[in-house]
């Protein structure tokens, strides 16, 4: 019945929505940033534990749609162990993939995150997927304690 949506709602997204990874408060977090999408009311708090410029742990709390929950869940899995520079590079790739500026996505570099490429076809949903990454960007730059997509 929802055949048209198969690219947007892949099984991996349903899985992360049902069982989000790293969904917990981190008491000893070094960085804690809130992300907010006023358009739909999605809210998340991202926690990072750093060792120098390396992310050694990432977790989140909050409520959002399946796309935004899956996006932040996948992100916390992937950035764990990355340096700030690696995570920022991935954010850039992810941004290009979801906003459709890049014709050819480097599938190897983007890895599991490719399941979110489908949002490109749904302009109203791009921010659902990118909220997590904008929040991470703010956390890494250590500039602000809350960000908004608007």
């Amino acid at each position: 019945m929802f055949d048209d949506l198969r690219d947007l709602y892949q099984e991996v997204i349903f899985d992360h929505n049902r069982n989000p990874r790293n969904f917990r408060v981190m008491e000893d977090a070094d960085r804690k940033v809130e992300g907010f999408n006023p358009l739909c009311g999605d809210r998340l708090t991202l926690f990072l534990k750093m060792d120098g410029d390396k992310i050694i742990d990432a977790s989140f709390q909050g409520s959002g749609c399946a796309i935004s929950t899956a996006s932040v869940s996948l992100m916390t899995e992937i950035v764990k162990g990355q340096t700030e520079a690696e995570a920022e590079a991935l954010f850039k790739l992810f941004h290009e993939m979801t906003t459709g500026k890049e014709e050819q996505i480097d599938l190897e570099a983007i890895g599991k995150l490719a399941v979110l490429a489908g949002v490109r076809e749904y302009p109203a949903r791009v921010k659902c997927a990118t909220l997590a990454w904008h929040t991470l960007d703010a956390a890494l730059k250590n500039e602000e304690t809350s960000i908004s997509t608007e």
Partner: protein
Amino acid sequence: MTTFPVEKIREDFPILKEKIRNKPLVYLDNAATCQKPQAVIDSISHLYMHEYANVHRGVHTLSVKATDRYEGAREKVKNFINAKSTKEIIFVKGTTEAINLIAQTFGKANIKQGDEILITAMEHHSNIVPWQMLCEETGAVLKVAPINLQGELIYDQFESLISDKTKLVSVVHMSNALGSINPVKKIIAAAKLKNIPVLLDGAQAIPHMSVDVQALDCDFYAFSGHKLYAPSGIGVLYGKQALLEAMPPYQGGGDMIRKVTFEDTEYNGLPYKFEAGTPSIADVVGLGAAIDYLTEIGMDNIAAYEAELLDYATEKASKIEGLRIIGEAKDKGAILSFVLDKIHPHDIGTMLDSLGIAIRAGHHCAMPVMDFFEVPATARASFAMYNTKQEIDVLMNGIEQLIEVFG
């Protein structure tokens, strides 16, 4: 079943024949904005093709024709809401501008430090923010009457918030997020006992019921054209003549003046005092055409048919496991706001869109209402006179399917 001619009405709305993602359009986002009948579309083309010029300023034939059309529409609005005089009908951009106009003119002239403005907890942002801005400027205080879990105003508490300091009561006639219809007659009667003017935000109410401003005895009534099957960018502020006359003007410019020198300006009379600049002429004409169209169908017939639609949708929705209706007021207009267990409204919106169904997913510009019900957002199906029970079946079937997919 009434004999409401819904199939005939659907023929009048060309957009209802559109296919969305290869499916017939099921348009259930009418509380956001309504679609337009051919009569409204034609009235605008006709004006531009045959009768268009600026109003109130030319002696030439076209200007006279355009002015006749424009002022003719004002007469239609006056009759539609049963105002006493066309002087009481001010054309504005929409409900939001109407409320801002009251805040900036009546508000600034009459509301001082320590005074109170009384609203309800179910207001839309446009009946909250203009008052907050006024309070910030003047030092007045915004009071908010609470609602209960059904989404109804707690009337006793509302009444107890009316005090000698209250200088204006501004309440929504029908809530856009919940569908609740406020007991406006009681509200107005209570305010009258202390001579407090009452502004009704009629943006949602006006397309769903007959509104008689004299019977209501409200002091101001605001509504938008685009929710009344008319173009967007046009709305109406009704105000009692004596109040409007005592108010300072809103914006300065052409049309709102009688005489201008560099030393002094004499303002025009009502309603022009509040209509500076060239107005949205074609949209006003479109509003007049929409009113003609609705008058022919009859607002009471529309209200009865929509009540049937809402009952049908509510009954169907109540049978879906995991669906919670937000807003269960006893007196309610044709709006069905709901949430589903573990499925975010945004996902519901995208899923239903893929079936050709347009609903609203979000906070409906009523964030305090969302906070009260402890939901980030709701999905909202809002019905109009051109919707059918069969469309409600399509919606409910879609909801059941998406629950299964998310499972």
